[in-house]
């Protein structure tokens, strides 16, 4: 999968590309409007991460170039502006999703995977980890081939874990993923524990292993070890 990152902050550009390369994506970088415009007219990409405030132009104008050359590509806008105008503008002009800075890598990964799923139906709809399989089209989970009945939130949570396997996810990151970040629930994250326990029980009941590790009571990690 090929990703173009358009971002004028070099530090951010490098951090993002380091992470995405580790996640087995092929990354190309553009730190201004001009470079991005050139690359878009020459190469094909699956995903374009687009910062809309660029020193030499507005990222929203790049969306027009993308529409022209990159029919297959999914676009995720990265913006520090949470101004609703930009969000609506961007989505109207054909962007697939919108991430407000600061965001977490795990969240970005989940959004990229979701856009890829929506854009390419060829086989990328199955996620498997050991005995656990998720069919993202049918939104069903099986353990050892047996179907697991999960609530919508439990499904979202398990999918988030599978996409970000072997990665430490803090309670805050999970809460932000499951609920809009404007829900002010800083006081209590117990509900995550409740959801996790339910998933653990259901997987165990279906004969699966417990892959959800608790890290010092502050975060979780989905892994074999």
């Amino acid at each position, binding site marked *: 999968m090929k990703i173009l990152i358009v971002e004028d*902050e070099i*530090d*951010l550009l490098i*951090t*993002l590309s*380091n*992470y995405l390369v580790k996640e087995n994506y092929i990354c190309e970088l553009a730190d201004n409007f001009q470079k991005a415009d050139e690359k878009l007219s020459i190469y094909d990409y699956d995903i374009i991460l687009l910062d809309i*405030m660029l020193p030499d132009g507005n990222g929203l104008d790049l969306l027009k170039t993308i529409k022209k050359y990159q029919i297959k590509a999914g676009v995720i806008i990265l913006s*520090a*502006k*949470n*101004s*609703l105008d930009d969000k609506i503008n961007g989505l109207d002009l054909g962007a697939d999703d919108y991430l*407000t*800075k*600061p*965001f*977490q*890598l*795990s969240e970005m990964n989940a959004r990229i995977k979701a856009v890829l799923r929506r854009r390419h139906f060829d086989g990328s709809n199955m996620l498997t980890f050991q005995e656990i399989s998720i069919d993202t089209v049918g939104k069903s989970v099986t353990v050892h081939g047996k179907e697991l009945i999960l609530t919508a*939130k439990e499904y979202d949570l398990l999918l988030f874990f599978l996409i970000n396997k072997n*990665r*430490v996810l*803090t309670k*805050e990151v999970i809460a932000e993923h*499951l*609920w*809009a*970040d*404007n*829900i*002010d*629930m*800083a*006081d*209590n994250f*117990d*509900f995550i*524990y*409740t*959801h996790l326990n339910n998933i653990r029980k259901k997987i165990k009941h279906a004969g699966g292993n417990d892959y959800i590790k608790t*890290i*010092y009571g*502050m*975060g979780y990690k989905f892994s074999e070890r």
Partner: protein
Amino acid sequence: MKFLDKVNRNSFILLTIILIVSSIAGYFVLRHVILSETKESLIEKEILLRKQIAETGEILNLYPSIEVEKLSRLTSKGPEFREIMLPDDNENELEPYLEYSIEQKIADTYYSIKLRQSVFENEDLVIILAFSLFVILSVSFGISFFINRSTNKTIWADFERNLQTIEHFNFSDKKKIELLSSDIEEFDRLNRVIEYLTEKLKADYRSLKEFTENASHEIQTPLAIALLNLDEILQHNLDKEDFKKKITIINALKRLSMLNQSLILLAKIENRQFKADKLISFKDALHRKIEEFAAFLESKKLHVELKFEQDFMLKMNGELADLLLNNLLSNAINHNLIGGNIQVTVRLNELKICNTGETNSMTDATIFNRFAKGKSKSYGLGLAMVKNICDTHDLEIHYAKDKLHCFTINKKIN
């Protein structure tokens, strides 16, 4: 009080005073003139009478007009005028007379002469004259008053329209303010000043808005870089202490970023940068929200009671409506007791959310202040936002605590 009413009232009071004073003054002046004329005519009559007596020696008596008596000698009385009342022959009423009495020596004989003239008719004349003066003045004042009023109205009509334009002026409007020009110099001067000031205000407002947005951008980007890198470090094997410290740093940075976003959002709500583009049904919206919050409600074992009498519909921005309900419900959950209650009531033009909770020192006056937070770990901006949204949508919000902590939102009745 309107300007025209004020001007009209003042001129009306002034005219009334002038009218009354001039009528009274006119009455006295006329009366004085007539009296002195009467006196003169009495004196002339006396001269004629004296001549008559000197020539003929006859004493003429014509009561009540002329009364002549012979005297043995002169008393010390000088000539004098008196106003006296005498009975009328026909009607048995007293009538006013002006009496001129004088003692004279005519051909070695002393006479007392009393001449009288009725002033009754004269008095009538004075009143009629004063009355007609009053009528003439009031009619002319009345006419000028109405002429003034109608010209004033046409002169002020454009001003009134301009005033309305200014009242409906919105900073976020891109259009230039357009005022009607008139042929009155002062009004045109005022228009020019207002046009200049609004343009200046708009320019300042735009640059301030751009500055806050850019500042937010500049703050969020380094925060994003710091957070992303911390997230990467978190993935390495860390001992418990290091892990804890990193989580503390991450949460502190997140808090900073949230705070920044919330303050910008507050400013945007205050600046009315959100368009009311959706008709919100609070009944439907609350149903959805309660479902969304199910996990939070469950984790605190909260019981929710919903009472819907009649729907509360309001035209507002969809995102703001969402934010309003999010913040109110978050508040009701965060400050609730384990196993507590939440009561949601929707009536026509009223929304009420009550929850059980610990006592606090907050009042209706302080609870909506920015950074007013009780024991909670929140930012203390949620309710400030709620208040701002209410203020910008003609809604009133009140907080009251009895057994329950209650927030009531009402549509403002104008």
